[in-house]
């Protein structure tokens, strides 16, 4: 049992930094999607997402 737990310590430490990058990437991607749907002022995007913006409380018009 003890051997097992020490054996997995280093892989877990190694995955911790890659997992931080994955977490950050996910958040950046999420910000991009929310910005595009909710805030970007490009006309085509605004028209297509118009009703969703109003219904979800984003400032519109």
């Amino acid at each position, binding site marked *: 049992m003890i051997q097992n737990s020490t054996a997995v310590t280093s892989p877990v430490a190694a995955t911790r930094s890659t997992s931080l990058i*994955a977490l950050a990437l*996910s958040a950046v991607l999420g910000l991009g999607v929310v910005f595009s749907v909710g805030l970007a002022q490009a006309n085509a995007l605004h028209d297509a997402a118009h009703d969703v913006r109003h219904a*979800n*409380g984003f*400032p519109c018009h």
Partner: protein
Amino acid sequence: MFTRLITSAVFAGAGAGLIAALLQLTFVQPVLLHAELYESGQLVHFGAEAVSAHPDLGGLDLMRDGLSVLFSMLLYTGYALLLLPLMAIAEQRGQSLDGKTGLIWGAIGFLVIQFAPGFTLAPEVPGVAAADVFARQFWWVGTVVAAGVAAGLIAFTRSWFAWIGAAVLLLAPHLIGAPEPESFAGPVPPEIAALFAARAFGVALVGWALLGAFAAYFWRTSAVHSPATQARSA
């Protein structure tokens, strides 16, 4: 891990976004279409003749409503991509994560992204008077960020100092005030605008609560197949 985050977010976002969109089309869209009749001048509030409160709003518009469904699913996927990393960090720090705690995560997401800015900048129906859109967006983003930091301080710290800081962050945007129009010249009756704000909040609360529950569920389900988790539990 990244694949696991993306797939969980897409499943949760698509599911919650679809349900939110159906609720939106049922409860919010008729109010919005009604308001647009006043925005376009087809109906006139306080005109020469009394106006019926129950006009014909037309049926389903496949193109327009289809886009709403699509964008709602996209938006909720975006929310899930933001929510899941925070859930994962909390889980790494020993917090349990399941459908029930996911519900709380979702409700807090609603408070941060919908309710905090909406407390002063109420969900706007088309045709109401409003200040410059960029000024409102700037205030909106600032308020969401402040509320998000405040929620983190309340949930994850144990010091009175941090909690007071959270209270200040929650109050400050509303004490400073959101950009307001010069005068109230909106042509939409207040009855419609009030119903719209209430319905928008209600649908969003359901959508967010489901999103949190779904995100936690898919995150946990995918852990069973993840090699990293198997190594840890071996």
